[in-house]
């Protein structure tokens, strides 16, 4: 007889958990991203080098959180608690001050990410929850939150309209939602370089950069979810890198690896080298660096409430604008 020795599966078998093909019969058409893979990628990014690698690549999220807190400070209202959806280690929550809120509740898909930084870095009281953003209402009761914020996490959500509806449901009447999400021009340099390299070297393209929201669609999505008094604006953060390779390293350390369902797990090194050469020639700057663009869409919306100011009925105006201007 054979002596069968039980063997643990190698760690490598955990590395790729996504099905190779998209099957539209068994999967909802909304399933674009592999949430389980995203959770693993974020966990790994936060654990690498005891979190130090992840801390060195906080620059994009910290910059966006800074720009978002400015908008948040314009809301002259005090909150007893704020919910930070997809908080990461708390880029936005760390900037909150006691005169605005007593407490912040941080929700994130990845346990290691949300617990990366200690409470001492926050001014307000912190509570952490590991929750999938897509199942917000399973963790948070309806009509319970005064304010929900989300800083650069909703671009990995499969059903964005559905999540916006859940956010609105979780808010109390007259509650506010403020979000920053990545727009469609994000990483266009990397997207075009990889596409050109794949076409020229291999004769076809495959998805490497996620599809992202179009700024023009966001106000109708917010409207459809039932928010009123909308504000949507678009901004860009540009970062300069020595070459494409540093960008790829940093994206991985941010936990922003590719998590599209049906992605390729392997890129041929010829294709990668070709993409790096194309990136430099097509987008490179005079000082020898290459730029990477992050397009950020800022959203503000309010849950309707009876006492809220509303626009007047169409046609109810008594003064002609023409008279005023003449």
């Amino acid at each position: 007889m054979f002596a069968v020795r039980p063997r643990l599966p190698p760690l490598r078998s955990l590395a790729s958990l996504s099905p190779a093909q998209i099957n539209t019969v068994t999967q909802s058409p909304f399933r674009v991203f592999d949430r389980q893979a995203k959770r693993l990628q974020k966990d790994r990014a936060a654990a690498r080098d005891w979190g130090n690698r992840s801390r060195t690549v906080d620059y994009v999220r910290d910059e966006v959180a800074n720009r978002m807190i400015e908008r948040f400070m314009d809301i002259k209202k005090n909150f007893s608690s704020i919910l930070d959806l997809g908080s990461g280690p708390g880029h936005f929550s760390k900037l909150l001050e006691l005169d605005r809120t007593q407490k912040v509740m941080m929700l994130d898909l990845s346990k290691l990410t949300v617990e990366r930084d200690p409470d001492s870095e926050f001014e307000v009281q912190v509570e952490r929850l590991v929750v999938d953003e897509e199942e917000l209402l399973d963790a948070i009761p309806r009509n319970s939150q005064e304010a929900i914020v989300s800083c650069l996490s909703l671009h990995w959500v499969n059903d964005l309209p559905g999540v916006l509806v859940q956010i609105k449901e979780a808010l109390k009447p007259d509650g506010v939602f403020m979000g920053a999400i990545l727009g469609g021009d994000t990483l266009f340099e990397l997207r075009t370089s990889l596409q050109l390299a794949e076409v020229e070297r291999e004769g076809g393209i495959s998805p490497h950069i996620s599809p992202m929201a179009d700024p023009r669609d966001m106000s109708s999505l917010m409207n459809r979810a039932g928010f009123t008094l909308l504000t949507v604006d678009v901004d860009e953060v540009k970062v300069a890198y020595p070459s494409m390779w540093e960008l790829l390293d940093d994206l991985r350390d941010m936990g922003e690896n590719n998590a599209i369902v049906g992605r390729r797990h392997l890129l041929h090194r010829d294709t990668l080298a070709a993409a790096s050469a194309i990136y430099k020639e097509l987008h490179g700057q005079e000082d020898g660096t290459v730029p990477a663009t992050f397009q950020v869409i800022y959203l503000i919306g309010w849950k309707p409430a009876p006492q809220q100011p509303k626009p007047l009925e169409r046609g109810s105006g008594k003064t002609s604008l023409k008279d005023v201007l003449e």
Partner: protein
Amino acid sequence: MQPTVVAAATSSTTKRTPLRRLAVASTTACAKEASDYGKCIVATYTDVHKDTCKEEFDRFGACLRQTLKRRW
């Protein structure tokens, strides 16, 4: 709105992984071949198909293989 340049990120990888060696070779030792290949693509990027710049890439690839002393 005016885009702002945040900071020039510095190289975060110090370990000499195979991918890192490829990165270094493609940006230093083979920079000229890489640039020739890139220029060829930029000249034709509205109509790229397979092997449009094969000649340039063969030189770039040969340089990489020679620098890394590996075949693939």
